[in-house]
């Protein structure tokens, strides 16, 4: 990473970094991670144009509430993707947790807290296994989590025979279904909205901590990160644990929102990955913002809602999701690459390409 800058370059970089808030804001919007917020606003505006009642505070807060589980899953998936891995087991973890809650809590209010704790332990354990097999046994995470996905799915089928057993106690379902009543303007603040805000704040804080910085470094270039003395295996393992824990929180919210059914959580891993990619996070790791991943989830759900409102058949959904993954990855790769090559940051363009830069920019240069 050592690089010598001529004094004039250095002042240009400094100038760019010290640009006014407004300019930095606009610059951020031009990155894929910022553009998703523009897309989100555009989609919401389109929905309200089609169906004005959607814009009423009460409807809108409920929309946020019902999108919270997928946004939380996207935040969890972000940690894994930014570290250069995948977590395909997420949907199965959601399903397993939903079934666990349904089968173990039953109608007994006293079991809510112990089962809740058990679910978090289970979630953390699945993440730990995913992480350790990926990092220590060096099995590609794609394979590890695919195996975990199938194993958990089989377990759920074995446990339930593929059918719902009934909903758990209402006190447990309140977490995903209830809210603070009697709030002015909004009428109600659903608990999922509050939980989403807490998870997002926690994730934001974590990404500004040394852990978050090292996570991105490990995703960008694991060898370089390891050479600095960072325990890459443990950093990545914790990312998997965060992902499974996020899936657990989503599961808890979904039990409340929807109820217990073996189909709850189906396809969640791909929706989460789509959301993360739509949020401008680069597959392969090392680039992207955590809150953009959450915004990606909202943009995706808004798009589906819009398509639904204008009468597009829901069977189109998967095609739309597929197109988004392809286009978003292509666009994001393009833009980040250009930025790193310097077209978006003129201050760096004058630099002669040296060896350090070559290795740092291996992603971009191999494509060239």
């Amino acid at each position: 990473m050592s690089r010598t800058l001529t004094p004039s370059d250095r002042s240009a970089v400094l100038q760019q970094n010290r640009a006014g808030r407004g300019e930095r804001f606009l610059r951020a919007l031009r990155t894929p991670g910022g553009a998703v917020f523009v897309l989100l606003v555009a989609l919401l505006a389109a929905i309200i144009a089609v169906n004005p009642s959607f814009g009423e505070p009460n409807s809108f807060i409920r929309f946020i509430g019902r999108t919270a589980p997928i946004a939380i899953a996207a935040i969890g998936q972000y940690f894994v993707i930014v570290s250069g891995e995948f977590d395909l087991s997420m949907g199965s973890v959601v399903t397993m947790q939903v079934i666990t809650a349904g089968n173990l809590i039953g109608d007994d209010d006293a079991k809510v807290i112990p089962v809740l704790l058990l679910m978090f332990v289970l979630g953390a354990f699945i993440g730990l296994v995913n992480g350790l097999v990926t990092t220590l046994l060096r099995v590609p995470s794609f394979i590890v989590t695919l195996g975990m996905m199938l194993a958990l799915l089989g377990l759920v089928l074995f446990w339930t025979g593929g059918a719902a057993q009934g909903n758990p106690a209402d006190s447990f379902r309140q977490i995903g279904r209830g809210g603070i009543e009697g709030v002015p303007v909004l009428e109600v603040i659903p608990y999922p909205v509050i939980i989403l805000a807490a998870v997002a704040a926690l994730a934001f804080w974590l990404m500004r901590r040394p852990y978050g910085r090292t996570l991105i470094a490990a995703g960008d270039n694991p060898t370089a990160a390891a050479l600095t003395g960072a325990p890459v295996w443990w950093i990545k393992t914790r990312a998997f644990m965060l992902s499974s824990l996020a899936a657990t929180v989503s599961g808890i919210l979904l039990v409340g929102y929807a109820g217990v059914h073996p189909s709850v959580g189906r396809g969640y891993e791909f929706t989460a990955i789509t959301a993360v990619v739509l949020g401008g996070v680069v597959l392969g790791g090392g680039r992207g913002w955590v809150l953009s991943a959450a915004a990606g989830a909202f943009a995706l759900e808004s798009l589906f809602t819009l398509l639904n409102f204008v009468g597009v058949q829901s069977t189109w959904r998967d095609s739309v999701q597929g197109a988004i993954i392809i286009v978003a990855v292509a666009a994001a790769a393009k833009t980040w690459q250009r930025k790193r090559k310097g077209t978006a940051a003129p201050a760096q363009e004058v630099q002669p390409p040296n060896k350090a830069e070559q290795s740092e920019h291996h992603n971009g240069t191999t494509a060239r």
Partner: protein
Amino acid sequence: MRNQSIRTAVTLAAATSLLALAACTTDPSVTEDPAGSAAASPEATEQEWFDQALYDEQFEQRTADFVGDPEKPYLQYIAGEMKDTSDLAVEGAQKVCFANASISNPWRQTGWITMNQQLKVLQDSGVISEMETRDAKDNDNTQIADIDYFIKEGNCDAFIISPNSTAALTPAVERACDTGKPVVVFDRGVETDCATTFIHPIGGFAWGIDSATFLSERLQEGDKVVALRILPGVDVLEHRWAAAEKIFTENGIEATDYFTGADPTEIKKIISDELATGDVQGIWMDAGDGAVAAIEAFEDAGKDLPVMTGEDEMSFLRKWKETGIDALAPVYSNFQWRTPLLALEKIFKGEEVPAEWVLPQEPIPADELDQWLELNEGMPDGHYAKFGGEDLPGYPEVWQERQMP
């Protein structure tokens, strides 16, 4: 540099086409008639699945007289052609082979429990030595292989087949018939009458007629009904919708149908979005799985609860009682899972059986709700009220615990 600008252009073009997809759908000409696009495909489906003769037949069968003791509805049938089975009469306990489509929904699970308790009775009385079951897990190919395995190596004295799908399983059922052993087909049908008897409740059209007539009587012309359907392509489900759609159209009720896969998340989203676009007066379901999520969506949105048809699943009956909605529970008689074994008992004795064994199929109206709730007190939410196994050993614990072999 040139290469890069081309790639940028391609990316931009791709992104624009995506945006265009989102943008063009805001075109007011599309929004004016949201039902327009939705209505196009059901019309095609209707032509494919709607069968006027079958519709008329089932319409009549709803009020037909059933032969047999009303206390034992699982043995009742509509008088018709009988099949002589005197040449199939045998002595001693027989081995039965059961090719099951799946037990992947609560309706099939409840029936499977009842069937196994019925089996115990017939084993104790020395009619059946054992029943070997293969579960096809909703897969046609698996079930075909299962049936062929039974024919070649199962050492079976009789076959029971609950087909996964109609057309695909027909040749396999014919191969089973060719063995000369008794073959009992139940629930979904096949395109051959080679089986000794085909057992089923009246059918999907009767379900559609009962439920859609109920909703049409209670709603005004121009009211909105959301139809929640599990999945396309299964005859018993498609017939329900084909009949219901015809009746809704005749009564000027605006019905929009969605496939939900019985996923409660999906059901809630669909209803929330429908309620955000306008009021919904009725909910029609082709199966009760997920009915509770549909009612909850109205509660969460703070809207008036709809007139609704669900199914005789306990979760729906309990929610119906709790909310006091105006509802009807159509029934796809779960007690039919007992009948195949009892039919084999008759066949082994050489007694005649109906060639097509049509079982009663009566919906649960509001005035019978309390009675059915009381009869099934303590049963789990996935239990079906008309399971018809009250006189079997293990009642009620086996159904309460949902003990499946």
